[in-house]
């Protein structure tokens, strides 16, 4: 049994036994869903269906229904894409990077954060696909032999790197998540009383029996997957940033993009995790497992990555002046003082100022304040991508071509729709899946549980 310092706050509050953990996690799945769940699900579904409607209209009519023009060929779609991919990054960071660092607090949040990752990457993947306009030829992005002779996709293009990065990221995250879910599904299966749910969970649990050898393999597979997912998560957002950084557009052509984007992704992802978990812990009665300490740890991550993002903004600004390139400096002066100053201002306030408030222990331990900041950060990070993408291209080299981007209602509908669809997926997950890695949480009960830490023989040697 692993011991930890007595002054460390316990990760599991109250006097829980192994059985209590099973009960606490499985009860919301086995009980009838509360009215609130149906209400939220209904709202999310309506918004999601509206989004689907907008997408169908877009596919039927063409990309012209977006507010794009000759100068601004990329705007909301790619902004939303990068925003969603960024949100996805927290899940893998929590489950993979924190596993490698042996951070035990990840166990209470990794399952739902990974679910969030997967659903966020689904939403992200939608945007490049619908931007093709002709969804049905989406498979052309793959290097498949075709009827046009020796025509292959361009492996020198960051857009193709992105295809590989996002699909690898999505499928590897999915596998990582599912491998962890199998033993927990087995727990639900063995408790299930209704024949239908017994059948469903026994299919989902793949016949898991918890043999010692299987657990031995399970631990190694988790470790190796974490080892593979860690560089993967850094590579994915680096590659997303290459979409811009490898171009020659002032404002995009920036060598600090990869680390800056990765930090921003983790920053926004943790904010989304906070938004979701603060509601979920309350709604599902998981306050003993996800409590102030977990929130505080996540706020520290937000503070650190927010500071990196802030540093990157200032560096960018400084370098644009220091480079002596007129176009480069103009891109940044225009960002801050041009017609999109309000977007730049929102980005700076939400992403640079707000995380700095987390230096104050009282604030970063306040759940209401955290929830508020998490929303602010989500908004700020959306503006960051909008600022980078739109302000860099709306005034190019020829003033005659200068233009403004105004989103059409389809732009807005598709974006809002993806938020709806995301919540549809997440609510289904919260209803039918174990939202806590319950069997993993049991492994830390004796080391980090409150009742064990307070018992007199905790610090005796075994």
């Amino acid at each position, binding site marked *: 049994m692993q011991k930890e310092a007595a002054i460390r706050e316990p990760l599991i509050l109250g006097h829980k036994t192994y059985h209590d953990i099973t009960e606490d996690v499985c009860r919301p799945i086995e009980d009838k869903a509360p009215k609130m769940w149906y209400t939220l699900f209904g709202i999310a579904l309506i918004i999601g269906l509206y989004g689907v409607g907008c997408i169908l209209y877009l596919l039927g009519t063409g990309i012209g229904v977006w507010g794009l023009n000759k100068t601004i060929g990329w705007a909301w779609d790619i902004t939303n894409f990068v925003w969603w991919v960024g949100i996805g990054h927290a899940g893998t960071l929590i489950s993979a990077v924190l596993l490698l660092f042996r951070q035990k607090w990840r166990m209470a949040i990794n399952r739902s954060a990974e679910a969030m990752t997967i659903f966020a990457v689904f939403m992200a993947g939608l945007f490049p696909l619908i931007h093709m306009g002709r969804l049905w030829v989406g498979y052309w992005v793959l290097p498949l032999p075709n009827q046009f002779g020796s025509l*292959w996709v361009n492996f020198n293009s960051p857009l193709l790197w992105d295809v590989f990065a996002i699909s690898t990221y999505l499928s590897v995250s999915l596998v990582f998540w599912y491998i962890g879910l199998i033993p927990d599904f*087995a*727990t639900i299966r063995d408790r299930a009383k209704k024949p239908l749910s017994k059948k469903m969970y026994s299919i989902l649990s793949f016949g898991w029996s918890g043999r010692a050898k299987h657990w031995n393999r399970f631990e190694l597979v988790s470790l190796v*997957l974490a080892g593979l997912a860690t560089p993967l998560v850094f*590579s994915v957002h680096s590659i997303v940033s290459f979409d811009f950084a490898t171009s020659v557009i002032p404002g995009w052509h920036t060598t600090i993009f990869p680390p800056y984007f990765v930090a921003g992704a983790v920053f926004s992802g943790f904010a989304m995790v906070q938004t979701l978990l603060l509601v979920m812990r309350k709604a599902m009665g998981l306050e003993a497992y996800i409590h102030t300490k977990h929130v505080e740890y996540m706020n520290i991550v937000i503070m650190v990555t927010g500071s990196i993002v802030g540093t990157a903004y200032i560096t960018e600004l400084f370098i644009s002046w220091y480079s002596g390139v007129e176009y480069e400096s103009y891109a940044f002066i225009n960002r801050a003082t041009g017609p999109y100053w309000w977007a730049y201002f929102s980005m700076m306030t939400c992403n640079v100022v707000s995380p700095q408030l987390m230096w104050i222990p009282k604030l970063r331990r306040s759940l209401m304040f955290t929830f508020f900041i998490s929303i602010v950060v989500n908004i700020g990070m959306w503006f960051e991508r909008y600022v980078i993408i739109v302000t860099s291209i709306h005034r190019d080299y020829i003033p005659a071509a200068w233009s403004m981007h105004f989103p059409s209602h389809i732009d807005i509908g598709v974006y809002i729709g993806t938020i709806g669809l995301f919540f549809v997926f997440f609510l289904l997950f919260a209803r039918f899946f174990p939202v806590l890695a319950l069997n993993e949480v049991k492994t830390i009960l004796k080391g980090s549980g409150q009742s064990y830490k307070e018992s007199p023989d905790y610090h005796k040697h075994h």
Partner: protein
Amino acid sequence: MSDKVIYVMYDDDEALKDSAKKLVSKGVKISEVFSPFPIHGIDPIIGIKNTRLGIMAFLYGITGLTVATLGMRYFMVSDWPMNIGGKPNFTYLDNMLAFVPISFEFTVLCAAHGMAITYLLRNKTLPGMPAQNPDPRTTDDKFVMEIRLNENHGITEAELDEMLKETGFFELDKKEIN
């Protein structure tokens, strides 16, 4: 050949580990342990070797890297060399840097999926497989040790019962199997 299986249930992981240690030191062979979560340190006690799935992941990764390298060399260099912005692809090395991201992604893709599939196949945990844990509580808060009489020829059933009683188990269940 008929055999008798004894399922000894404990309500604590440490209790199971301690008694497994005692039993093994008395020469009892424990054929299996079922638990709701990994019991750290049980593997060497009951003689379970460390898995070699890590080596497999490495091999799958190498395979992915090779496929990606050969593939991109074929697509971009030999089959249809594209001249992009005056930077032609005459050799693989000319263009290697542009191939790094996909080589990496494909390596990870193959390693992760190859290992995951091997893991599921080796465990025989696949959709539709029946559960084999002797008691539904072993996925909740109980820990079960499986001892087979046929694997313990030197020990009589009575002797074994005596040894087990000393370990302070939670429940004991015996089953005849043919």
